[in-house]
């Protein structure tokens, strides 16, 4: 994607001016980097002993890998349950019975507008009063992730079903399918496929949100990194940079996957349109 239409192709003078400006930008960036460097340096955050622990196998084995496992466990459980929740409530909101449609809409809208952290607090601190047992931090985090992201996923799937051509449903009824079959065999598969990029973006959100677990003491990557590694080696900045890098790599991989799926599905529908 280029935005070259916003400016003329520079002539000889423009090229020279752009070179000067590029140099100025580079200088400004260097100045910022220098200030950051000096500030961190005053606190010894660049000292080798703050960074070398991040390369040690035992640090990875005690902090980073278990933390990553915790994050991924919560995220995977959240994705599976949120997808289930989303499917059920998307179908419920599309129901032709008002007494199913309206309550489902209320549930979805409610959980979409309540902050995730409040849901986690509610489950974690309220479970004893509600069900008589204290649930684990893991369960509380997955509870919150499921309800919040499940509601968003329900809306994504519903939008996907609504975006399908009317003929799909009509053709399915015409060949004698029942209501449930039309939804299950014809509409949902196409809706999920069309919305796959949006669904994956939501999974990225879910993965990032799992970091909220540290507030109720769930053992995950941000907690292990900032409270585990940093407490042992007093290297908050290096630890935070490493943890952020891990998240960025995972999320960018998911983003790329979403893009690829989006591109391939539009290509397919374009080619099938040509065929017809």
């Amino acid at each position, binding site marked *: 994607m280029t935005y070259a239409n916003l400016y003329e192709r520079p002539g000889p003078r423009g090229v020279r001016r752009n070179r000067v400006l590029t140099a100025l930008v580079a200088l400004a960036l260097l100045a910022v980097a220098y200030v950051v460097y000096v500030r961190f340096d005053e606190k010894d955050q660049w000292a080798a002993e703050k960074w070398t622990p991040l390369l040690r196998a035992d640090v990875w084995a005690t902090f980073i890998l278990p933390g990553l496992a915790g994050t991924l466990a919560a995220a995977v459980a959240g994705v599976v349950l949120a997808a289930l929740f989303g499917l059920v409530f998307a179908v419920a909101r599309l129901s032709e019975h008002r007494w199913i449609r309206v309550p489902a809409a209320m549930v979805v809208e409610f959980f979409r507008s309540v902050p995730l952290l409040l849901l986690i607090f509610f489950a974690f*601190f309220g479970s004893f009063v509600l069900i008589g047992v204290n649930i684990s931090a893991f369960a509380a985090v997955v509870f919150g992730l499921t309800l919040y992201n499940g509601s968003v996923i329900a809306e994504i799937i519903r939008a996907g079903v609504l975006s399908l051509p009317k003929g799909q449903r009509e053709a399915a009824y015409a060949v004698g399918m029942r209501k449930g079959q039309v939804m299950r065999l014809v509409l949902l598969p196409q809706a999920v496929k069309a919305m796959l990029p949006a669904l994956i973006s939501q999974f990225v959100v879910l993965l990032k949100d799992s970091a909220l677990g540290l507030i109720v003491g769930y053992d995950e990557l941000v907690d292990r990194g*900032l409270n585990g590694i940093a407490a042992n080696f007093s290297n908050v900045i290096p630890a935070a940079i490493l943890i952020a890098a891990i998240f960025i790599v995972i999320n960018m991989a998911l983003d790329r996957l979403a893009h690829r799926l989006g591109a391939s599905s539009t290509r397919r529908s374009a080619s099938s349109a040509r065929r017809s």
Partner: protein
Amino acid sequence: MEALLNEGGTILAAFWMTVRLTAVSALGSLVLGTLLTAMRVAPLASLRATATVYVTVARNTPLTLVLLFTGLGIGANLGLELSDDIATNNFWLAVIGLTAYTSAFVCEALRSGLNTVPVGQAEAARSLGLGFVKTLALITLPQAFRAVVAPLGSILIALTKNTTIALVVGVAEASVRMRELIETYGDQVIEIFLGFAAGFVLLCLPMGLLFGWLSKRLAVAR
């Protein structure tokens, strides 16, 4: 109900903090997000690269980590003092973190808004002799803003809910108050939760309606 009624004043104070965090961060994100958008479409490759890297990093890092980094890293470790008063200092640290995170999303929304502006608009501006800055500021960005009112509304709502995470920097907003109340009035968990949830619904619902109305009102007819 008793807990909510007895503590009504402190709950309102906590929500007032939520509103202030949201308002200041929203303003900051709008400014920084617009600046980032301008950088991402600028003629200078160095500016484009800087903005792209920034947006990628900010979007893909959990907000919890961003706020912990501003709190522990920039605040405690680097000793950035924005005010002598600890509460005010934490407030501004939270605003920095929320702004740093949210502006990346504002930038993404605005950039997709720029894509909806017909090429002819910028071409006409250039043929009138406007340079890059003027073309962007006078012609394309205003139209881009009008195209992305609804997405900006969603970002604002997400920001409102995200302010609850400011508790990791020590800002006494709604989620902190809710946790304290649950500890004090353990038997009224459901009422307390529903009360705070209602508070957020009351904050976010009008925003959703307002931005829905605005986006229709301001849509560029093409």
